[in-house]
């Protein structure tokens, strides 16, 4: 057994949060720069210029990229040969509280969805754990803004529908999101599993590097087809018109019941703040 202390996990999560709040991943920066060069619409191009300029100001001045510093979502793959010393969930939430305090990040979480009192320290995080072979822990962390998350959708299809119906639903979801989700967006799609599994893999797909595709050829083809169709909607950057509406379409699949075909679409804004660290 390899021992990893909860304290080590806490330090790692704290440092990831403090990095992603001010620094976009390289692939997202590159995608926004390339979008700025390609966009033809005047207002769309001016929005993309703001986004490219914003990356530099955030980094140089340690100002958050977006005022919505998000809900912390963590996918943790824990090797079965690892023994965690200490309380894992307590460590994670202490890391979130400390990072949001020390980084001057916004506390955007209410403790009860009906009473709506702010928890005051951006806790709790949403944590998915998976036990995998090996003696390492992989931490995938995303700070998810509320505006884009609100534009997400899930539908339970009849199993007899084809790829065409699924694509129609994705496009409809993107059109409903329109300017509200802060386009250019990243579209995470989960197909298969159950109601909950589809949503979970849709979110997990957001971690994939922009420009890469699902390893299954028919899914990769669907991703390319969808990206083309989404960028033909004309929604454009900021919803002000243009050809760059999405930077990527990422899809994950899971086997499903003979009666079912769940499809979840998780919308992510261009301020796609995430990082993966293995300890």
């Amino acid at each position, binding site marked *: 057994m390899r021992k990893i202390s909860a304290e080590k996990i806490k330090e790692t999560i704290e440092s990831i949060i403090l990095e992603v709040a001010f620094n976009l991943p390289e692939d997202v920066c590159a995608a926004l720069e390339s979008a700025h060069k390609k966009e033809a619409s005047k*207002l769309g191009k*001016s*929005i993309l210029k*703001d*986004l490219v*300029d*914003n990356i530099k*100001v*955030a980094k140089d*001045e*340690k*100002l*958050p*990229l*977006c*005022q*919505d*510093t998000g809900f912390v979502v963590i996918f943790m793959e824990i090797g079965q040969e690892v023994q965690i010393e200490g309380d894992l969930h307590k460590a994670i939430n202490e890391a979130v509280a400390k990072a949001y305090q020390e980084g*001057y*990040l*916004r*506390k*955007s979480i209410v403790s009860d969805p009906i009473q*709506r009192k*702010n928890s*005051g320290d951006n806790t709790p995080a949403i944590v998915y754990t998976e036990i995998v072979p090996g003696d390492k822990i992989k931490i995938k962390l995303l700070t998810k*803004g*509320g*505006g884009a998350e*609100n534009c997400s959708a899930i539908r339970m299809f009849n199993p007899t529908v084809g790829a065409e119906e699924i694509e129609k639903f994705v496009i409809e979801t993107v059109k409903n999101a*329109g*300017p*509200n989700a*802060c386009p250019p967006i990243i579209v995470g799609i989960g197909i298969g599993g159950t109601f909950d599994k589809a949503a979970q893999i849709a979110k997990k797909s957001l971690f994939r590097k922009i420009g890469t595709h699902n390893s299954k050829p028919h899914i990769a083809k669907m991703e390319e087809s969808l990206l083309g169709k989404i960028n033909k909607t*004309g*929604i*454009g950057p*900021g*919803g*002000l*018109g243009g050809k760059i509406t999405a930077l990527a379409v990422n899809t994950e699949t899971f086997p499903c019941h003979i009666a079912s075909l769940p499809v979840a679409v998780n919308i992510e*804004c*261009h*301020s796609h703040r995430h990082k993966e660290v293995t300890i």
Partner: protein
Amino acid sequence: MKKITAPLTDKDMQGLHAGDQIVISGILYTARDAAHKKMAELIKGKKPLPFNAKGSIIFYAGPTPARPGKPIGAIGPTTAKRMDSFAPQLYAKGVKATLGKGARSKEVKAAIKKYRAAYFVATGGAAALLAKKVKTAKVIAYPELGTEAIYQIEVKDFPAIVAIDSKGGDIFNEKL
């Protein structure tokens, strides 16, 4: 690039058309979901709003905390449609413009036309850049709401786009 200074007048509004890129100087009041709910209760109870609404601009925003020595943290627009059900009564009280992101309902558009007002959009997710335009900030109401409190902020050359103008011109309807 048109320059406007808040508080706004009817004359200011006449020169603004959907699609215009503008820069705003003067005072903005931040308010998002929770503050709107409270202001709606004030209006219902016939009590005064926490700020002088006449000619004012409401900025749909909840900033990050300011670092020491800075007026504010990151600040940028949140989705305006969540405030659609509250906006008409605020325009009726004299608010001349709201500033957010995304499209508005037809009820909001009708109120904007009726009161010769406007709706502006700013770039979403560019909150570090926009924070540089904020000169001063103070909480004037509902401090218990944290980031959702009403801040009075003074801005200089804050960039925005006219999304709905006083005649009902709507950039989103034209584009989509």
